[in-house]
């Protein structure tokens, strides 16, 4: 366990950040740290001395907290779990009639199960990394032969720049007639609704022309919602934007299989990557 020496701090103004990065690489999470402590102390995983391990665990947390307060979130949950286990081990069992199966089980059992399960996947990760990785150990030809590229220009898609996307959006927006009268009432179309409409539209097609997705979007509001829906789909990796050639029309290419082309709601969008 190393702590940033004063020399480091002078050399690197943001050394706290640096140390923090190193630390998270050293321990992926509370399980990783616990397994490390169990191994270091050479104790039996089925018979963890909770008090000793918890003390060391908290010592690590102390150092981590000195370096950066934010990182300990998941680690703190584990600390409280450890302390809860210890207290359950100290408490006498309830009177006979109230003993359920749960109470009879070693309070450590759940933790041990999860640790072993985690260890299993960590080993699987190591064996994955040892495989002959494409791009590291083995290589493929990653270019199309030039003559073929000419025959099939579509193969050579350019990724769309943000600027071009905005230009295309402006063009669509310009085609919407300026409204001269005042309209009352809400249009009630949400981005999520529009995403689902677009997904339906794209289903089964290889690609759609960007402008064509705006057909039927009569008002400025609808155009903007459609545009936001396309951006959202992009962000979710459900479509890809590409051009067959520079300044050509922008193609919206669905990247998802039908299975996932199920209704998406706004919560979905935010929940996983909030």
């Amino acid at each position: 366990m190393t702590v940033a020496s004063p020399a480091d701090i002078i050399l690197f103004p943001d050394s706290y950040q640096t140390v923090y990065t190193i630390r998270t690489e050293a321990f992926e999470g509370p399980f990783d740290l616990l397994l490390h402590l169990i191994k270091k102390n050479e104790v039996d995983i089925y018979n963890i001395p909770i008090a000793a391990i918890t003390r060391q665990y908290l010592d690590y947390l102390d150092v981590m907290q000195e370096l950066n307060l934010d990182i300990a979130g998941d680690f703190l949950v584990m600390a409280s779990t450890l302390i809860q286990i210890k207290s359950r081990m100290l408490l006498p069992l309830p009177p006979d009639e109230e003993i359920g199966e749960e109470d009879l089980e070693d309070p450590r059992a759940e933790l041990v199960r999860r640790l072993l399960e985690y260890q299993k996947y960590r080993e699987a990760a190591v064996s994955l990394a040892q495989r002959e990785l494409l791009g590291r150990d083995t290589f493929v030809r990653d270019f199309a032969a030039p003559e073929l590229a000419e025959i099939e220009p579509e193969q050579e898609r350019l990724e769309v720049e943000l600027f071009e996307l905005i230009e295309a959006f402006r063009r669509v927006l310009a085609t919407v007639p300026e409204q001269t009268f005042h309209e009352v009432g809400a249009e009630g179309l949400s981005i999520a609704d529009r995403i689902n409409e677009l997904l339906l539209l794209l289903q089964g097609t290889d690609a759609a022309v960007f402008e064509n997705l705006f057909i039927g979007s009569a008002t400025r509001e609808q155009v903007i919602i459609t545009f936001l829906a396309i951006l959202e789909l992009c962000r979710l990796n459900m479509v890809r934007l590409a051009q067959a050639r520079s300044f050509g029309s922008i193609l919206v290419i669905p990247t998802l299989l039908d299975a996932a082309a199920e209704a998406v709601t706004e919560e979905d969008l935010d929940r996983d990557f909030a």
Partner: protein
Amino acid sequence: MTSLKSVVESLLFVADTPLTLDRLCSILEEHDRRDISDTVAELLAEYGEGTRGIYLAEVAGGWQLRSRPENADYLRRLNRSRPYRFSNSSLETLAIVAYRQPITRAEVEYLRGVDSGGVLKTLLEKKMLRILGKKDIPGRPLIYGTSREFLEAFNLKDLASLPTLKEVQELTARDLLEQQEELPLPGLNVNSKE
């Protein structure tokens, strides 16, 4: 007349993704499926002799000509693009998704004990993972699975050829995650929505 073997070899040489038997059969419609499959087997054997710089790899349900892993050092000098790099947390998450798919973010986090939203997102961007659908439980969380690109990157024929997990003695976990069925093997068609 050119031999079927030479045609198949040319196709494999030029193709930019692994070619499946189905794909080969649809290209070579005038040929018998069995002949094509025998031809691929012949090529596999010939490239397997190990005298050439390329070999025929069985990946992602198809075949692809790849450089010999022994020559990797030299090829890295040629190839200026940065090699695939996976952090420990990426590998851990990939392993969990690979063995437990279809899986939700909450399940990944239960197994890892840490927040995994960022890693999942990165892996989606790297196209190692894909969204299979949404789980039919409250909150309708997204379901993740591995992609064809994952099989290609890790030189896997299909999901069934993942190395077997080291079984944990005695205490085989029976917890809330155990409600899921066996891993959806084999092959790529794991578009289950539950």
